[in-house]
């Protein structure tokens, strides 16, 4: 049994749509719930990088917020470091926030434009009342900046966020999370807004920091190609559910769920000879609204392999295939056979 740092059990988050007073009278009881996260369970092991993959609208960001405890779950359970953290009082929550930190997608928006870098990095120390003299605090800030390779640290401390490039800002954002010595980092698309040439640099830095400090990452992204490089295990989410989960290499080399297959096939590869080919995507249309989740298997509306059973029968649970590779498709093997037949002929 591996050492589990975060265990999520049957977690759900339903949002009530905004309604005006008049609407709520006329509409009566038939409010459509937005099922952003609809019953997910997974474990994150200590010291691993766990990738949560999905399109926008898949609920991956909501999951991240639930883990960060920025929003309260509708139901389900979260166990962090052996402790139930589903509901926490003020004190416990603050304690939890010290251990679990977050890196946001937009490095331009995640820092108050009126804070200098020094103030940005000092904020966690102030919030968590880290008792220290100015010199000690400065030392901690310098150390954090050096950890993310922003040197000379003293020079960066006096700058404003707008004077830094996207990559540099994301380094500062990482340094801000590291300053409190957290156990786990939630990184929500940390590199999607950064230039390609620096993207790898940031991921490399994050991975170095993770190895050095023995951190656990929850890496949320829609980009499978960075996920393969960056993560140990991957969970693929679709419309608030996990449809496939397993080792990163397994998922990408041997995807079992048709949604994962579509995701993989959609990724462009820097190779020649594809200009005049219209890519055949094994998926239809766009992701439905989470307020209107299809009955049966929630993917059947877009699935080219769907049968009547997929439309009418209850949704399949995650099934084990091989070593810790789970999927939620009842036709996985038939599809696999179909696909390999097609590839061959």
């Amino acid at each position, binding site marked *: 049994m591996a050492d589990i740092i975060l265990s999520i059990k049957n977690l759900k988050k339903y949002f009530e749509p905004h309604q005006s007073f008049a609407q709520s009278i006329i509409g009566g009881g038939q409010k459509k719930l937005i099922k952003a996260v609809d019953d997910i369970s997974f474990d994150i092991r200590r010291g691993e990088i766990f990738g949560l993959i999905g399109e926008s609208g898949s609920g991956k960001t909501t999951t991240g917020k639930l883990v960060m405890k920025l929003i309260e779950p509708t139901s389900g359970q979260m166990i962090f470091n052996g402790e139930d953290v589903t509901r926490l009082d003020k004190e416990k929550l603050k304690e939890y*926030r010290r251990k679990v*930190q977050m890196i946001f997608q937009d490095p331009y928006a995640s820092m*108050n434009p*009126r804070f200098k870098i020094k103030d940005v990095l000092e*904020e966690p120390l102030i*919030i968590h009342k880290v008792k220290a003299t100015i010199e000690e605090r400065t030392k901690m800030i310098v150390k954090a900046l050096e950890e993310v390779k922003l040197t000379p640290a003293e020079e960066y401390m006096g700058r404003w966020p*707008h004077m830094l490039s996207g990559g540099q800002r994301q380094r500062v954002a990482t340094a801000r999370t590291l300053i409190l010595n957290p156990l786990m980092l939630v990184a929500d698309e940390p590199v999607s807004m950064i230039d390609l040439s620096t993207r790898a640099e940031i991921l490399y830095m994050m991975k170095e920091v993770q190895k050095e400090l023995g951190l656990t990452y929850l890496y949320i992204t829609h980009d499978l190609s960075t996920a393969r490089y960056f993560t140990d295990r991957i969970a693929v989410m679709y419309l608030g559910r996990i449809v496939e989960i397993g080792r990163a290499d397994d998922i990408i080399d041997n995807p079992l769920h048709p949604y994962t297959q579509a995701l993989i096939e959609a990724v462009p590869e820097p190779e020649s000879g594809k200009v005049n080919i219209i890519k055949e995507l094994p998926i239809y249309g766009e992701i439905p609204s989470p307020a209107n989740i299809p009955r049966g298997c929630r993917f059947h509306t877009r699935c080219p392999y769907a049968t009547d059973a997929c439309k009418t029968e209850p949704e399949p649970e995650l099934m084990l295939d091989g070593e810790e590779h789970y999927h939620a498709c009842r036709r996985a093997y038939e599809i696999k056979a179909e696909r390999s037949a097609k590839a061959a002929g």
Partner: protein
Amino acid sequence: MTFGDIKYRLNEFWSEFRKERSGLIGLGILIIALLIVIFEPLILPWKDVNTKWRSIDYWQDNSANAPPAWTNAFTKLKAPVTMRLEDAKKEETELDGGIKLVTYTFDYHYTADKAPLDVILHITGHGDIPFQVAIERPDGETIDLAQRFEQGLSGQDIRLSIDNDGREAAFTFVKNYESQEALEQFSGKSLRTADVLFNIAQPGMAKEFKPLKGTYKLIAKAMLLDPENSSVEEPYIVVTGSVSGILGTDDSKRDLFSGLIAGLKWALLIGFLTSAISVLIGVMYGIISAYFGGAVDSVMQFVYQIVNSMPVLPVLIVISAIFKPNIYMLILVMVLFFWTGSVMTVRSMALQIKEETYIEAAKALGAKKSRIIFKHMVPILIPYSFASMALSVPSAIVYESSVSLLGLGDATIVTWGQILHDAMQGAAILKGIWWWILPPGLLIAIMGMTFAFLGFSMDKILHPKLKTR
């Protein structure tokens, strides 16, 4: 935050601030204004303006609606400037019978092209004293102007106006030069004493004024009939000219410069306190309403709507009927109605800021609500607050004056608003008395601008995004 930290931050702020020219101008004006308030007693030409603004006696030696003295620079015929002569040569002579004659001689250098309106002697006396005033002209003529016998004095101020008391003497003087024929057209009543006294003595002088320039000696004599029990002291002479002071006078003969200087501190107080308190309340109200949302927001918006729709004047009348209006009461009432001004804008701005990622980031770091509100949301609203303050400073000042109009103003102080209000009552615009309207109006505008300048440059510093563009 330690003291060193604060000092560091202030230093940092100052090093940025000094680059902002408009901010420095604003700061400069504000410092000048504060210095004027501090050194007010030294600057005021009329020392008792704060207490005697509404006293008729205090201002009676001035001329009404006199333009500022410096307007002489732009006119061909120079008008005499109102001035006060205090340096007197004192002579005491013993007369027969133990009577003591005290003579004060004042020198008046007359250089204007028009005659002064009046010359007035003030003296304080004790006991029974006969007074006499005479004038010695540069051409050697001496005219005895007036006599008066005051009895039972005990330190009152005696006022002898030549225009009033010396008319007969002046008429007599004219008679020496004018033909009977010419004199028939005039009577002592229609002749202004000063027109005679400062005229060149020659035929036709009653008709035409030709200034006799030079040094006039004004001689005031007091006869101490019983030197043991009577005395005179503090004599001074006021020459009432037709131009006066730095900013002229109003139609109640009040010196406007003194009034404006005395009003400065109230303008600062009313403007600053009212706008600062109401904007502070409004900003906090808006932020709290936006940040907490839901039921809190609904209730707070309801209260806001009620206050916002309440008519101000009826409430003010009721309040002033119950309490005796004073300036602090007025400020309080203004705050009570002014705070709503910024609520809606702040609320909508705060609703936007609330959704910013860095607010979420602060939450994720474990920041308390108070920290998020005060460290992250309030600073972003500071520029708006300053702008809003700068805008409500002039309106607070003007509002105070319109409250005065209803008789609800504080009658114990001088304010710019009251001066403006008096100017409107006195139809200053129709009469072209610009020095009564422009200075208070400009000062109100400058005060507003000062705060606006300060606000905008602080905005630039506290909002680094603006700096780069």
